[in-house]
């Protein structure tokens, strides 16, 4: 009864709150007013239902999620136990290889975009998920990669293969260049500075016509070649698709190894407690810089591929919105979790493509889910589980001595 009353009040409050924006629309030119009373009904019913869900989730959260954590979940079994991991990986690989031959070119293209976001997500995951550095200007390094291929190709005719490592290097270079001054800053300031830096890069690309051809961008970027052979357009798409698959596999491999290394541990430790971390003899700046530069390297590399894929780039592809999308992939997937990030990238990029009606609401849902995730499930769809080590062997060996 108390809940019902509360929910009615919440519903009324939101009806009031959304009234001017949701119900009224004025056309100032024609001097007409459009009243959309249906929206009011939607809001009323919607918030009423939502308040019940909210209350339920809150209660569940307060009861403690510990039970959940102790259970070994399906994804953990899938990724750690060889018995399941190898067949699963093989199956995914087979599907990945067959996929482009059974779908339309359009589908391949959207799949490439999704894969691009997978790699971007995994790259940012190193920075945000592992090292805990909130980078809101990640897209700037993506732009660095894309423009380095576009410009080097345009002015000097450099090939895709020459530019791929160059783009990665330039990404890393800019990562270090920006990282050295800003990584001293506390978490929230770092977020703002990186955001500012990302915007500066975009604004420069937009305004410095002599250098970047301004808002109109650069067109006719060459397709990649295959061992010196020109590839047809449709072949090119297929080629980029396989290239992206390879890059995703490579990225997973690298991130996985890094995660369980000396460096990876120091990133996580740094995220947990900077002061304790320094007291353990870890050089804060070097460690942060390594994470920042690695993240930027991946962004630079994917940038090159992006430019090759679209064969046209302009500054509009590198707005803050892109950074926000990549960030929400990391957040929703689960900070630090590889599988989570991959799943989130597929869901967030492919779903709006499949459900056209839904695509309009894409950013609205991104934003809302970032808030809800933080409130109810900060660990993401798939929580990153710290690796446990086996020691029984060691112990027994010692006892035997």
């Amino acid at each position: 009864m108390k809940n019902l009353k509360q929910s009615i009040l919440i519903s009324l409050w939101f009806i009031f709150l959304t009234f001017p924006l949701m119900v009224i629309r004025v056309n100032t030119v024609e001097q007409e007013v459009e009243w959309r009373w249906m929206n009011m009904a939607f809001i009323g019913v919607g918030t009423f239902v939502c308040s019940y869900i909210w209350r339920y989730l809150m209660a569940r959260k307060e009861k403690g999620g510990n039970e959940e954590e102790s259970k070994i979940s399906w994804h953990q079994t899938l990724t750690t136990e060889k018995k399941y991991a190898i067949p699963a990986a093989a199956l995914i690989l087979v599907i990945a290889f067959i996929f482009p031959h059974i779908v339309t070119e359009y589908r391949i293209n959207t799949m490439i975009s999704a894969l691009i976001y997978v790699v971007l997500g995994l790259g940012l995951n190193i920075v945000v998920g592992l090292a805990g550095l909130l980078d809101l200007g990640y897209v700037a390094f993506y732009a660095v990669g894309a423009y380095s291929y576009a410009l080097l190709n345009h002015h000097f005719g450099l090939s895709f293969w020459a530019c791929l490592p160059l783009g990665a290097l330039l990404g890393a270079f800019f990562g270090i260049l920006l990282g050295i001054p800003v990584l001293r800053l506390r978490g929230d300031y770092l977020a703002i500075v990186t955001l500012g830096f990302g915007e500066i890069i975009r604004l420069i690309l937009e305004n410095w016509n002599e250098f970047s051809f301004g808002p109109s961008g650069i067109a006719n970027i060459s397709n990649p070649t295959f061992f010196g052979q020109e590839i047809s357009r449709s072949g090119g798409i297929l080629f980029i698709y396989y290239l992206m698959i390879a890059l995703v596999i490579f990225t997973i491999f690298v991130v996985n190894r890094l995660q369980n290394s000396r460096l990876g541990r120091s990133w996580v430790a740094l995220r947990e407690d900077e002061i304790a971390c320094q007291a353990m003899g870890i050089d804060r700046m070097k460690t942060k810089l390594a994470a920042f530069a690695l993240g930027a390297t991946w962004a630079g590399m994917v940038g090159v591929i992006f430019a090759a894929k679209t064969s046209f780039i302009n500054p509009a592809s590198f707005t803050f919105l892109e950074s926000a999308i990549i960030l929400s992939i990391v957040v929703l997937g689960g900070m630090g979790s590889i599988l989570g990030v991959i799943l989130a990238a597929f869901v967030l990029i492919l779903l709006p493509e499949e459900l056209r009606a839904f695509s309009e609401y894409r950013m609205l849902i991104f934003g809302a889910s970032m808030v809800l995730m933080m409130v109810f499930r900060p660990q993401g769809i798939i929580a990153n589980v710290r690796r446990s080590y086996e020691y029984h062997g060691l112990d027994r060996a010692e006892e035997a001595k």
Partner: protein
Amino acid sequence: MEYFFELFLGGLTRGSIYALIALGYTMVYGIIELINFAHGEIYMIGAFTALIVASLLTMAGMDGMAVLALSMVVAIIYAGAYGFTIEKIAYKPLRQAPRLSPLISAIGMSIFLQNYVLLAQTSDFLPFPSLIPEFSFMEPYEHVFSSSELVIVVVTAVSMLVLTYLIKFTKMGKAMRASAQDRTMAMLAGINVNRIISTTFIIGSTLAAVGGVLIASHIGQINFYIGFIAGIKAFTAAVLGGIGSIPGAVLGSLVLGWTESFATGYVSSDYEDVFAFTLLVLILIFRPAGILGKTKTQKV
């Protein structure tokens, strides 16, 4: 010289608007140490609400100051309500969470609100009626300083005075200052900290709405995206002055306003936003505590 004055006064106007928004950032940061990314969106929502109300009233045949006053009041009420609700949904459940969580939540809220307005209204620029009347006594100076600019500067100054009074001399202001110093201690002293935080959000949102209505009326058009840039610039101003400090926010805003005004006037107008962002980056790198802020030593 006249050009200089024009830029100076233009900077003053800009700075006033930034100050109205920056205060919200600084007050919220002072109490819960959170960069409220959604604050710029409140400013935008304030402007949209005012636009809708003003259009309805104009169509109903009202005009002049009454329209301005009424739409301002409604915008203020709604901005306050939004600020209050946002805090309850996106930040309050995260009081105990790691620092990064509320920040991400705030970014999510900002994206959500932008797209909410985009979907509920339009993605186009909407013409905003110039609600501020032209004063006849300003006519001789109109080419350097318009009536609407005068109103902006005056309203800002009055708002600052009222705010200073609220914080310095009322019981609520005292509670706010106490909560900013030490939240736990304030709670132990019997202050309802949750209510203080809500109040802070409401006051900040109110000021942002005032800024939103004034600038929209001055420039003459709005869209769903105006909050983002304005928000970041106001945040820059708050950091410039020393985040958490109220006079600092005003000072920082004026400095930023003048920097932008003179830089676009004398250097190049293409890079208008670059100046602000560069200033932000430089400040954070070289003097993160800002002009009036104090460097805090971390407790170990």
